[in-house]
């Protein structure tokens, strides 16, 4: 081997090491992930989702409220993979179906999981969720068999309903860009949340705007000392769309979505 050939071989090895190093470093964000991403409706479980997603963004393109975003370099192997940040823009099902599932070319988002994949306990929905907006239609349900997350009342002490307070004004302020469809405004055209102010005696935004029937309610509790307290309670039909988190007027939100969270049974926190 001549000196020239040796140097070429060394350079080739260095390039190989560099490219492999860069590629495999994509594993680090997965290993050290501090928070889970909320994936679009119908997403397979995280590992399967990452392996089956082809990172084309067709789900992004069909979403009428642009709830779906694509992850960046910091997500490592998850670069280009779709996620939802519900506090900024929740999935409100204003497409009336789950268009993102229909758009997915590889089966990373599915109506029905393939037989060889198992369902985590508490991920499955007891029945197909009924969309409030479609309640009067002949087919009022969403074709969704698993929840993609679940809402949890994480800060009950700050909840306006718990405090017995009402709410007046735009839910997230005048500068908030998040959008939603309001049936009484236009079924097919989502508008800015900022353009839809409220005047409520008791704040019930999370219940009022939840797109799924019977997924959340405000219930009355009587404590041992006889004091009466009102509080939002999440029910089994919750799919984890995140509308409650988006509309919660308290900063930070009192109710949050646990990505890929499961239904833990009645009385869960």
């Amino acid at each position, binding site marked *: 081997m001549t000196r020239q050939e040796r140097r070429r071989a060394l350079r*080739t090895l260095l390039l*190989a090491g560099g490219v492999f190093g860069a*590629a495999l470093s994509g594993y680090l964000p997965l290993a050290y992930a501090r928070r889970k991403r909320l994936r679009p409706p119908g997403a397979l479980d995280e590992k399967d989702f990452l392996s089956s997603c082809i990172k*084309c963004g067709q789900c992004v393109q069909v979403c009428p409220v642009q709830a779906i975003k694509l992850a960046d370099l910091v997500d490592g*192997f998850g670069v280009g993979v779709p996620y939802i940040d519900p506090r900024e823009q929740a999935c409100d099902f204003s497409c009336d179906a789950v268009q993102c599932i229909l758009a997915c*070319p590889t*089966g990373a988002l599915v109506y029905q999981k393939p037989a060889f994949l198992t369902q985590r306990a508490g991920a499955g929905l007891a029945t197909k969720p009924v969309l409030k907006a479609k309640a009067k239609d002949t087919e009022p349900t969403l074709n969704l068999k698993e929840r993609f997350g679940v809402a949890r009342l994480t800060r009950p002490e700050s909840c306006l309903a718990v405090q017995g307070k009402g709410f007046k004004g735009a839910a997230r302020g005048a500068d908030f860009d998040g959008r939603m469809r309001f049936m009484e405004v236009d079924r097919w055209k989502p508008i800015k949340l900022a353009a839809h102010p409220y005047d409520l005696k008791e704040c019930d935004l999370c219940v009022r705007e939840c797109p799924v029937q019977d997924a959340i309610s405000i219930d009355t509790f009587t404590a041992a000392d006889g004091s009466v307290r009102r509080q939002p309670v999440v029910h089994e039909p919750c799919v984890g769309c995140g509308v409650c988190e988006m509309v919660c007027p308290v900063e930070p939100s009192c109710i949050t979505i646990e990505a890929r969270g499961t239904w833990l049974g009645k009385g869960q926190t």
Partner: protein
Amino acid sequence: MSGAEINAAAGAASGVPANTVHRQRFVEQVGLLLGREPTKPAAVTEHAIRLHEIKRARPKAEVRAAIEAAHAVPRGHKWRNRRWAVLIAANLLFTLSYALDIQILEGALTASRFIGFHLIDLNSALQVMLAHKHIITNLVIGTLTVATFWMLLGGRTFCSWVCPYHLLSEWAEKLHLRLAAKKLVSDQHMNRGLRVVFWLAFAGAALGTGYTVFEAISPTGIVSRALIYGPGLALLWVAALLLFEVVISRRAWCRYACPIGLTYGVVGIFSPVRVKYNLNACLHEGDCRKVCLVPHVLETVIKGRAADVDVPLGPDCTRCGLCVDQCPTGSLTFDVKGLSKLL
């Protein structure tokens, strides 16, 4: 040399049947795609031998004058301009389909729908199939559609006519060549076999880890998504690659690394669309090899190397047409197998 002498020399040469030469060329060209170094052809047709003899007999001064005369005519950029127009139009169609909601070509280069029909990038499809180990119908349809398309048009035609990283890299190459002319940088060659190693390693990584590892660093996917969904930090990786190509090694990603290029190269092995070399008028000054992304496919233009009078270039050729634009004698042309016979 007089005409009689040429004929005598040609008579003395023992040519090999065209079939043998074609088989040898096929093996050689597939070898080049897989990273082998070019070799001198062992079998040469009689007609080619005769032409080589004639060329060898030409006085040097006469050849030099011919090269000068040929280069006096300025060369255009016909094929480069067409190719850039197609590449930009294709990527713009993705961007506009989303930005203006015209829905003609939805998705990104990794997977898309063209007026509803599934199209799926072959290497991305391979990664997903190996990682997920479950293949749905739409994935099969999209993959077969794209495979058929590029089988016909020449696999690596995708690289130079569609891939957005190719265009960025082409501009980086111009910068590299300008700096190299000033002796500020020099092109560090690598072993082209590395691309095969990468292909196998990334296929193995997808199969073994269940993650589409290559997609995390694929500059094609990253640039395509950035053009459609907006820029992100992932472009830093692309910038690093381009910097490497400017400063250290000319067109390193496309030449030595990209498994997408190899996938499409293999798909296009039997493609009827190719660049064809004709030995007759070639002056062997080698300008075509200087502009070529994959100069090993053009070894055949070196004086005395052509095994036949007509030599279609191999599957590693990206059909970019730079050599066609560059050639002052029209010895390199686009050709569709069978079509020229029909016409």
